[in-house]
């Protein structure tokens, strides 16, 4: 029974001395083999098998298409459409920022990318209209997380692969929770704006919306192509991501005529290291998870949870609190890869549907984007708005609380997550 102690001891030691997450996972797994005097040939096989998978190829393709959409002007047009929708009511421009994140979430699978694309346009616009700088940054950082809940979603791809669940089904199940989270944020934005007196007034001439839509018609079609292709069963998620790469290239070169060779090269360049650093974790996390399962850690956790309480609601609360806590310190995709092999069997043994658990997990990670100390979206918001992380964190508290409330609702009422996929026969 020493293996789990060596594993966790080594893992936390390596994290504390600042070793990369991939090493903390891999070296602690390796230490378990060495301590037991076992041959670690299986680690080499894991290295190959964990990465040699068709579904994960969606990840580089989505990162690449997201990068290209920036250079091709698709992102800017989508956000602009949401911006001109801003109505004269309290917090009107805040609504637009949330709406823009939803639009953008439907073409991008990444939280920070959504925050960057939306924040670049919306934060200056909001500050211009008298919204507080840190409030604008906190709002975009929180709503940027919608990028990973509204399909397509890179974290859902990673969950689907680690849990061997259908990614298409996850993409279907994420729609309603995404809308609920957006709704929660909109209500919070309305209440706060009303109190602070943030009113946007009608800032755009009539006809501006029609013009924006006409200009952005190819941008609006992007989510139709990606999601329509997946839901109709025409493409697998990986294929849809690849198709969206070529769609973006086509629109960027021939229609918008904005995609430069430099933009293209830079997109390729950043896709290489972003994918490399994330997917190598897939290898060590698989090795780590295998040792946990071999030592029946999930079973022990399930047992000790059940000893504490037999109320599923209480267990959900504990799990959500734990996930949000972990999400404050660990990178999102690494969190999913580490937590899934441990907690999924626990929750399944308690009668929870794997798709339901996956969506709650992704939503918790979504909150992690806008909580310090490691809140990727806040870093972006802070560098755009030029305000400190501390100020943004303080202003983000109401949004985080609303999001937690929505996640708890999602956990308690599985129908909210599972209804849509069932409706479409998945």
């Amino acid at each position, binding site marked *: 029974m020493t293996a789990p102690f060596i594993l966790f001891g080594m893992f936390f030691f390596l994290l504390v001395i600042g070793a990369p997450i991939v090493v903390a996972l891999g070296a602690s797994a390796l230490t378990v083999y060495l301590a037991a005097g076992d041959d670690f040939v299986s680690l080499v096989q894991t290295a190959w098998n964990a*990465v040699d998978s068709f579904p994960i190829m969606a990840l580089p393709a989505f990162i690449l298409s997201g990068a290209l959409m920036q250079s091709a002007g698709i992102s800017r047009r989508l956000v602009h459409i949401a911006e001109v929708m801003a109505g004269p009511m309290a917090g009107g421009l805040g609504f637009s920022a949330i709406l823009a994140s939803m639009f953008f979430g439907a073409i991008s699978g990444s939280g*920070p990318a959504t925050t960057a694309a939306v924040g670049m346009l919306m934060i200056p616009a909001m500050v211009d209209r008298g919204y507080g700088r840190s409030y604008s940054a906190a709002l975009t950082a929180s709503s940027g997380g919608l990028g990973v809940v509204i399909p397509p979603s890179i974290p859902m791809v990673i969950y689907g692969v680690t849990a061997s669940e259908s990614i298409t089904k996850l993409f279907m199940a994420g729609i309603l929770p995404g809308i609920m989270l957006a709704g929660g944020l909109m209500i919070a934005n309305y209440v706060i704006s009303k109190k602070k007196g943030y009113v946007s007034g009608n800032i755009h001439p009539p006809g501006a919306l029609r013009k924006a839509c006409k200009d952005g018609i190819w941008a609006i079609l992007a989510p139709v192509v990606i999601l329509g292709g997946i839901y109709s069963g025409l493409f697998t998620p990986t294929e849809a991501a690849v198709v969206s790469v070529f769609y973006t290239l086509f629109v960027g070169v021939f229609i918008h005529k904005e995609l430069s060779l430099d933009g293209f090269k830079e997109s390729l360049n950043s896709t290489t290291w972003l994918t490399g650093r994330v997917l190598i974790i897939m290898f060590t996390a698989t090795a780590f998870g295998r040792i946990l399962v071999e030592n029946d850690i999930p079973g022990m956790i399930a047992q000790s949870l059940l000893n504490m309480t037999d109320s599923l609601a209480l267990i959900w609360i504990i799990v959500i609190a734990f996930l949000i806590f972990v999400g404050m310190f660990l990178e999102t995709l690494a969190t999913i890869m580490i937590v899934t092999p441990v907690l999924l069997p626990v929750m399944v043994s308690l009668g929870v549907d794997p798709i339901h658990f996956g969506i709650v997990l992704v939503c918790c990670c979504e909150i992690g984007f806008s909580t310090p100390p490691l809140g990727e979206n806040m870093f972006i918001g802070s560098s755009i708005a030029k305000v400190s992380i501390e100020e943004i964190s303080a202003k983000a508290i109401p949004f985080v609380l609303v999001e937690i409330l929505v996640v708890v609702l999602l956990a308690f009422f599985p129908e909210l997550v599972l209804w849509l996929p069932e409706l479409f026969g998945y």
Partner: protein
Amino acid sequence: MFKLIRQMDKLENYICQLLLCLFVVLLFTQVILRVVFNYGIPWSEELSRFAFVWFVFLGASYAARLSAHNRVTFHLRMMPAKLRNLVELLGDIFWIAFNTLMTFKSIEVIESMMEFTFYSPALDWSMAYLYMIFPISFTLTSLRIIQVNYLKLVCGVKFDDVDEPNLEEDVMSTPASKSEQYGSRPLA
């Protein structure tokens, strides 16, 4: 000569970009062939997966060169820079040890695969050659870690946190006009 060395600095990156283009084009061709002509190339999926595995492991090495691998850093940020560098050096030594052990083990695996050859189902390639990526990538990564620590500790080069971007241009002064600064910098 200097130019050559400078090019070597991005070696993995160039190979990765080629592999990325290769598998993205292969997959797209496959989709078009299937949807339009209802035809499939039997080996294309396998080749794209192999290109993808090589892409990931070389990309990890390039990420090491950029010092971009994710770490838990909130407590390290509170330390003085010198102490932080030394603590991280200790972490990196474990990383190199891990890479070295993996290199030797993967060479052992490759040797045994040379004796009892496995062939990939569609392309009929010997898996031993495909597994060569492991000694290559783990060794390259170790070299990159040494390079980064040399640059950091001896030359005093500062590596910015890639997840905490510093915008050179101030967008706040040009409101609601440009959003292209991030164009070059996708975030995942």
